[in-house]
């Protein structure tokens, strides 16, 4: 459990998806492959509406992640906080599972509080040191236009946060809808995003919001990253008839 790679998709949107596979199903698919899906709803003066809010909650729930609805000004700090909290939660779950295997039925929650405080310290440490790969998916459909400068700021800002971690971190940024596909990769995997990146240029003009298909395409981005060989051995032994890393049943440790 020394080296951990946590994988997350972060969706930034302002409304309901209206094209292709349900984003909730797509999020469930991601979770199945060890990828946590977090969602941030960005609102202006206009409200998101009950349906939009519900969808955001459902995507996060199915994706094993967290969600929040914020104004553009709060975007940067929310991105960082959601990411960190989701990481803590993932590690908590993994540690809990391992503890259950050792202790039988009882996991962390059955430990006395002062013992759990020590576990919390360990979870915190693991979170800081583990590798983290995040794909940020930005909704660039019409209504998001006025918010894109805040999103751009948040992307750069998030890169600073990732850079400040002890563990290795990488991020990629995609926008949906894309020109030909559902998703355009705006920034491929990188350890540091340059400020010069322009989100607003060269956008596909369209009224459709294919959140679900974008998540599915983002999952494929993780298949490019190789697992450390030792971990790969450990897991490929367990998996039967498996032909790719992407379909690991669990979070990768």
């Amino acid at each position, binding site marked *: 459990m020394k080296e951990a790679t946590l994988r997350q998709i972060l969706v930034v949107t302002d409304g309901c998806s209206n094209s292709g596979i349900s984003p909730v199903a797509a999020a469930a698919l991601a979770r199945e492959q060890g990828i946590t899906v977090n969602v941030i709803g960005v609102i202006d003066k206009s409200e998101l509406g009950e349906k939009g809010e519900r969808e955001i909650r459902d995507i996060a729930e199915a994706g094993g992640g967290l969600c929040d609805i914020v104004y553009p000004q709060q975007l940067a700090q929310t991105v960082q906080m959601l990411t960190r*909290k989701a990481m803590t939660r993932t590690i908590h779950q993994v540690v809990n599972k391992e503890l259950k295997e050792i202790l039988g039925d009882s996991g962390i929650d059955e430990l006395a509080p002062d013992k759990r*405080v020590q576990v919390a*310290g360990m979870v915190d440490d693991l979170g800081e040191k583990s590798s983290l790969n995040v794909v940020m998916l930005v909704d660039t459909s019409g209504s998001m236009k006025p918010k894109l400068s805040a999103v751009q700021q948040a992307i750069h800002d998030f890169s600073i946060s990732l850079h400040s971690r002890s563990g290795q971190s990488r991020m990629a940024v995609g926008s949906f809808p894309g020109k030909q596909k559902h998703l355009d990769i705006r920034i491929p995997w990188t350890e540091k995003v340059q400020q010069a990146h322009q989100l607003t240029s060269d956008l596909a003009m369209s009224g459709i919001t294919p959140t679900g298909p974008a998540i599915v395409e983002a999952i494929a981005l993780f298949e490019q990253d190789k697992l450390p060989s030792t971990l790969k051995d450990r897991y490929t032994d367990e998996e039967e008839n498996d032909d790719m890393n992407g379909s690991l049943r669990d979070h990768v440790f």
Partner: protein
Amino acid sequence: MSSKAATPDLPKYFQGKWNRKSYHVLRELGRGANGTVYLVSQDGVRRAVKVGVEGMDILMEVNVLKSVQQGRDSKVGPLLCDVDDLVVNGKACTFYAMEYLEGEQLDRYIQQAGTEWVPVLIVQLLARLDVLHKHGYTFGDLKPENIMVSQTDKTVRLIDFGGVTKQGSAVRQFTEEYDRAFWHAGDRKADTGYDLFCAAVIMVRLTVGKELWKSSLSEPRHTGLLCDIIRKSDSLYPYRVPLLKAFHGKFASAGEMRAELLTVLRERTVAQPRKKAPKPGKVGGGISGLFVASLLLLAGTLYYAWFM
């Protein structure tokens, strides 16, 4: 699953699962990123109880509060009294009880008491931070809302330890207004300089008041904007050297910054009858040097912004 910890409704009365202490809930005190704080009564003693959905986040705060309390007289934050679980709707939630600090949030206190209190309270704040730093932590989310001035002895205490981070790790929580990275003055690694930067911005913000503060913040943010405010403010100008040093991460410890602020504070009090104390030449050289440095930084930022 919102990040704004949707805390379940607490029953009017509850008992801890492990330590069996019983609590009567009096009212809600406030909400943080990790949970909600309630005023409670435990056997007639008033305490503050923090409850959150994500037990790990709550326990991490407990971890910090515990280690800060090893030095008895530190008074950095509230004393920890109990850590336990309570069951709401069949689901176990972790909570901790702490000493209830009765007082006013720093910004509200200044509004009532006047801005002459700002340097006095910042000096106190730096003493608290110094203790925290010596324990190997950075406060992180330092802002007026997380600083309390106690009613009885007018001392500054830190509340909400949700952002407290081990030195060297990435800051766990921050607020853009006071965040070093947001001002393009460095990264978000937890170190002494991070907190001191926040403290300096808080000092500026509290001295100039809300309206002027809001109107002075243009994008992109850079510390040159803060320097402009300092130059125009009679109350801040005398503190320009320590403030600029904090913006540029030139202090090795909170104690060092505290000492420099104290020196200015004393000089000011002594020199009060005169209109403006003449600047000693030696210090003056240092100041202009620092201003040149900040101008260079400003130029750099503008150059940077050009390509955004």
